[in-house]
């Protein structure tokens, strides 16, 4: 069994367990935190696949921005107290063990995989990590230009829609 396989299995365990933890926790804030753990685990998966850019983007966008907004809304609505039908005593130790495992693997992969090629581990030819970013940019702006533009317009429409929904109409004030 190679080291990559061991890492993958441990990560998969953490990912599945944190997903289950999110589903079964009674408290909305705890559920959100499990989801954060899950997102970070997925980011470490990307590191394992020698795709540090996607990994960092995953952490920044999902774990960093979107989940913080989730938490914000949960806290704002005060809906963190779901009816407590059962207490799960195994949650806390499980969370600790999983996050320690994840942190160790993330640190290991970050220092080994996210390095310039030829330093420690030779990455495969296709996803040479130093060229990773440039290739991504080229692919986005040449081969996939149309989908990229469509997505950006979609996001713009969503943004304008959100502003329209929240803005009071001028006549409604009186």
């Amino acid at each position: 069994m190679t080291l990559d396989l061991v890492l993958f299995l441990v990560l998969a365990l953490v990912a599945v367990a944190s997903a289950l933890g999110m589903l079964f926790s009674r408290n909305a804030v705890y559920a959100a935190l499990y989801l954060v753990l899950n997102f970070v685990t997925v980011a470490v998966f990307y590191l394992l696949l020698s795709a540090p850019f996607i990994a960092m983007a995953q952490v920044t966008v999902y774990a960093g921005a979107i989940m913080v907004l989730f938490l914000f809304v949960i806290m704002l609505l005060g809906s963190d107290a779901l009816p407590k039908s059962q207490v799960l005593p195994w949650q806390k130790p499980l969370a600790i063990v999983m996050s320690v495992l994840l942190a160790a693997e993330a640190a290991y992969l970050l220092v080994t995989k996210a390095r310039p090629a030829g330093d420690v581990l030779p990455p495969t030819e296709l996803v040479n990590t130093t060229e990773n970013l440039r290739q991504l940019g080229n692919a986005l702006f040449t081969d996939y230009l149309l989908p990229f533009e469509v997505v950006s317009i979609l996001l713009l429409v969503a943004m304008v829609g959100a502003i329209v929904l929240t803005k009071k109409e001028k006549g409604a004030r009186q």
Partner: protein
Amino acid sequence: MITDWTLWLEWFIKSLVWIFALLGGFAYLTYYERRALARIQTRVGPNRAGPFGLLQPIADAIKLIFKEELSPAKAYKFIFFLAPILTLVPSIVIAAVIPLGPPIQLFGRQINLVLADVNVGVLYFMAIAAVAVYGIVLAGWSSNSKYAMLGGMRSTAQMISYELALGISLIPVILLANSMSMVDVVKAQGMLWFVFLQPVGALIFWIATLAEVNRAPFDMPEAEQELTAGYHAEYSGMKFALFFMAEYQKMIVICAVMAVFFFGGYLGPGVDKYPLLGPVYLFIKVFLLLFAMIWVRATWPRFRYDRLMSFGWKVLVPLSLAIVFITATGILLAEETGNPMWMWAIPAASVIAGLIPVVTIYRTLKRLSYERA
């Protein structure tokens, strides 16, 4: 598997060096800040413990360690315990990608003065900065107290808003360095620091980082007068010390990042010959930038909350988008025409773009004050 145990030893020693440097830096930054603030406010500051009060941080540390730890009866205990740790860890982890100096020769092997030369270093910094908000939010929530909760919510909104400007203001740096690795960013500034090529970007980055570390004038989450202490109102003893430590370590690390991105990092005269001068230059730059942070705290009143938000979204974000456009255009023109003088169009156009909001805000405020009078 890496079988070279010396490599593990190297990482271990480098991590230890960073952790102790940040710990010591935190202790003496509090002293530095108190003395500098006192000087600005024509006071003396702590000068009793030891020569020039140099033992004051040690006295403070002993006091904090021996304080009683309280936790509210209705707090969410586990998260309440976890929040200070979650706040402290990102502040240390960011340091991993900061290059301290050029590679040196030691014991017959080359040692890079950086813990991890991650090729997406700039994004790594953004990712950690994005995750850093959790500690504060969870501290606010788990305390189960209204003041703490308000502080936590304020910090969430503020950090999300300013993170955007922070991220976009780094794009010119990536474009100019043509790389996302922190080491490459420093090397690219051998001729000229990026602060001269993109002064507006440096300013936006500076403002956004002040907001990210919740420093005055952006210290809304802990506004003493309104929220007693915001998110850490319910914390005491060592747990409070961790928040305290996190804030000051973040200041140090962020000043180091600022130095790397815009002030040439470890570069300075003679670094090529004597690589050990690198950390010294970086230290001097960080020291000066820290003084600027303290200076800002001493001179600027706190923002009003709605102005904080509209400043972030309506001024900083559009302006940083504009400078990204200007920088990309400048680089493209310089490459297409083969004339590097086009690069100077970048700072010129950026400063003009930066002056537009400054003038607009100034005129609006002036008009408002006339209306009030």
